[in-house]
C-alpha cells in the first residue's frame, strides 16, 4: 500500500504558488519592512496582525465607513487577540 502514500512528485503537484499567497501582499508595512527580504512565503506574521481595523478607517476610498454601534469595545475599536 506504500504506493498510495504521498511522495515527492505528489507533493510537487500540490505546491502552492506562494508568490501569490503571502500576507505581505496586503501589508501596509511592506515597503519598509525590515523583518524579511523574502516577502513571498509569509503566512503568519506578528507585525501584520498589528495592522488594526481602526487604521483602515483613515484610508481614502473606503465606501460608507460607519461606526459600529454594536461593538463589544466601548470605544468602537476592535480588540486584537
Amino acid at each position, binding site marked *: *500500500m*506504500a504506493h*498510495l*502514500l*504521498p511522495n515527492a512528485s505528489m*507533493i*510537487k503537484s*500540490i*505546491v*502552492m*504558488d*506562494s*508568490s*501569490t*499567497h*503571502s*500576507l505581505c*501582499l*496586503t501589508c501596509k*508595512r511592506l515597503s*519598509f*519592512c*525590515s*523583518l*524579511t527580504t*523574502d516577502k*513571498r*512565503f*509569509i*503566512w*503568519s*506574521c*506578528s*507585525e*501584520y*496582525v*498589528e*495592522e488594526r*481595523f481602526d487604521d*483602515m478607517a483613515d*484610508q481614502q476610498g*473606503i*465606501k*460608507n*465607513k*460607519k*461606526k*459600529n454601534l*454594536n*461593538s*463589544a*469595545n466601548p470605544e*468602537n475599536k*476592535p*480588540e*486584537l*487577540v
Partner: protein
Amino acid sequence: MSLSKDKKEKELPKQGMLANVMQQFESAAKIMGLNSNIQKILSEPNNELIIHFPVRMDNGEVEVFKGYRVQHNNALGPYKGGLRYHPTIDIDAVKALAMWMTWKTSLAGLPYGGAKGGIQIDPKNYSQSELERITRRFTYALGDNIGPEHDIPAPDVNTNAQTMAWIADTYMSTKSPSERSQFQHVVTGKPVGSGGLEGRDRATGLGVFLSIKYWAESKKMDLKDKTFIVQGFGNVGYWASHFLQEVGAKLVGIQDAFGTITNAKGIDVEDVFNYASGNGGSIVGFSGAQELASNKFFGLKCDICIPAALGNQITAENANDIKAFLIAEGANGPTNFEAEKMLLKRGVDIIPDILCNSGGVIGSYFEWLQNRNGEIWEMEEVIGKIDKKLKDSFKKVQHKAAHDHIDMRTAAYILAIQRIERAYIQRGIFP
C-alpha cells in the same frame, strides 16, 4: 522544458506551505514508523468546506464571498483552529494550516483536533458594519458545521475578539432561547466581557517564556543576567520579553517591521513598549538604544534568541551568525530546514514552534472549559493552569528527545502524531 517554464520554476520561493507541512509530517512519520494506514488518513483532511454566500453592502449592492473551513482531524476531540480574513487565502493554505493545528493541539495534550478556515476578502475594503454582516452571514452559512462540541473557531489574521463575539452571537441566535447560553463556547478568543478569558492576550508570550524557563531549569541554569534578543515586538514578543525581564534576564536587541535597535547594557521592556505605543507601534528612535542594520540582528551577542515575528527568518545565510545557545520559536516556522541542521550541529538548542508558542491554544482551551463549566477564572488561576499544562508537554518532548537521541522538533512531531495514532488504534476504523 521551455525556457519560460524553467525560469518560472527558479523564481518560485523555497516551497509552498502545504508541501512544507507534508514534508515535516512525512519525515516524522518515517522516523517513528507510523502505521501506513494511519498515515494515509492523516495525509488528507476529514472535511473541506467551500461556501459561497451573499451579503448586502452599505451601498445596497450584493456581493458574493467565498469562505473556507477545513477540518483536518478530530480523533482526539472537536476540531479547533483560527479563521482568517485575507484575499490570498485558498483551500491549500487552509489545508496546510489545519494540519498544523492537529499537531499543535495533540502535542499540547488537549482534547482537540485541528481545523482552519477563513474568508477570501481584504477587510480594508469594507466598513465595520459590512464586516459584521459578512461574519454573521458566514457563521449562518457554516450552520452546524461548527459547534462547541464539534468545531471551535478562534481569531487569526485580520480577525479578533470582536469577530468572535459576532460569531458567538449569531450561532447562539440560531438556537432556541432556552438553550442559547449553552453555546457560548462555539468560539474562543472572545472579549473578556463576553465569555473571554482573562490573560488570553498574554498566553502565547507567557508560553514562550515558560518554555525558556523549563529549558533553563533542565540545564540548571539561572535566567538572571542572561541576555536575549527578540524579533517582532507584537503580542508574543512583548509578553515574552516582559516575563523574562521579571526574572532578571536582559533584553539587548529588538527587531520589528520598522527597524532594529540594540543596547548591550540592556533595554527596559516597559519603556520601549510605552515608547512604541506612542510612536505608531515603531521601536525606532527609542532613546535607550542604538539603531542597527537589520541584517546584523541575528548576529547580536546574546544567550537566547526569540524569533517571534514570521516564518523563514533563520536560514542558511544567517544561521552561523547566531551567537545564542538557545532559540525559542515564538513565531510559526521561523527556522528553515537547512538552518536547523547547521544550528544543531553547532550545539544550539531549538525549542520548536508547535511547543514554544502553544500557550495560545492552551489559553483557548481554558476559555472553552470556563464557558462550558459556567465559571469565571481569575488571571492567576489561568497562568497557573497554562504553566502546568505546558510544563507537562515540555517535559515529555525533552524526555523523548534525550531518550531517542533526536532533536526537540522531531520529538515534538513524533509525540503529537503518536497520540493520534494511539487513538486510531484503540478505536479502530468504522465500520
